[in-house]
């Protein structure tokens, strides 16, 4: 019973903190993200496991996390509102040659973050971007300016 409660609390708390800390773009994790993920994960683990190092405790907690994950995924697919809370919403960063300044500031993004994603698409300059969107998985999608016929 105790193990299940600790696992549920740890899972929800971790989800909440990671959601609040925010998304940073990029397919590769920077050292900042490495530190964040491993440190928070490790610290949560010590509280969740407590002094019960048994296989039973580990199995119960793994099953609890699996059930919680399924539950969150189910809620996300059945409620748009819950999906927004759990994952956030895609955000337009650049729209037809104009930055969304407030969004960029609030998401702690710089123009070079957008340019890094643009280079990945084979673009060379910012003015070649029609739209840049910060996706829910923290990647930046780039839609290039269409060539006029």
């Amino acid at each position, binding site marked *: 019973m105790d193990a299940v409660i600790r696992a549920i609390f740890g899972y929800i708390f971790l989800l909440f903190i990671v959601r609040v800390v925010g998304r940073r773009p990029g397919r590769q994790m920077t050292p900042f993200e490495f530190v964040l993920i491993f440190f928070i994960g490790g610290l949560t683990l010590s509280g969740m496991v*407590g002094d019960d190092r048994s296989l039973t405790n580990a199995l119960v907690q793994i099953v609890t996390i699996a059930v919680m994950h399924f539950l969150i995924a189910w809620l996300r697919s059945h409620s748009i509102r819950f999906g927004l809370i759990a994952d956030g919403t895609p955000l337009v960063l650049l729209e037809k040659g104009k930055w969304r300044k407030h969004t960029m500031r609030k998401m702690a993004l710089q123009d070079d973050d957008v340019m890094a994603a643009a280079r990945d698409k084979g673009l060379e300059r910012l003015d070649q971007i029609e*739209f840049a*969107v910060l996706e829910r998985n923290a990647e930046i999608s780039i839609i290039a300016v269409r060539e006029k016929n």
Partner: protein
Amino acid sequence: MSSQPDTEHVHDSVAQVDNEIAVGEDLEFQRKWWAFENVVWVVLTLVLLLDLLGAFGRGYLANATLSAKDESVDVRYERIVRFKTPSILTVDLGPTAVREGKIRLWVSESLLTDLGNQRVIPQPLSSVVGDGGTLYTFEATDHPTTVQFALEPSKTGTCKMSLGVRGHELLHMKVFVMP
């Protein structure tokens, strides 16, 4: 059961930007989320400050002392402790606590059970269980002496405990054990 896959026509269900690309951006929700995040950061900062002050144990606010009016005993302890985390309760015994070269210190059962007493320093001459607690007997001189209890709480929540020298005032304390 039909072998045909379950299908549905595609609708424009994802919100578009400039009626061009389907992004699904919900800026109204995001603005509310940013406002919520601001509140969360304030709360997290307060939690950190309270922790630094010791409101969750192991700090200035957690430390407490209690003295008997007859000066037989002073107790230094933590009023906020943490589950399964070591904590020391120190009992300073005054000269009036010594009788015939011995000190008889009674502690309530909660100190041994809920607060998880691991050991008594120094080792007592004897310990007798009874009256809802344990009576420890120590050999002592006339000089003030100190006895320590190494605690490791095994139960969360508020815990009441009492201790005192036999024949003197009994001190009552409340300790909160953080999960």
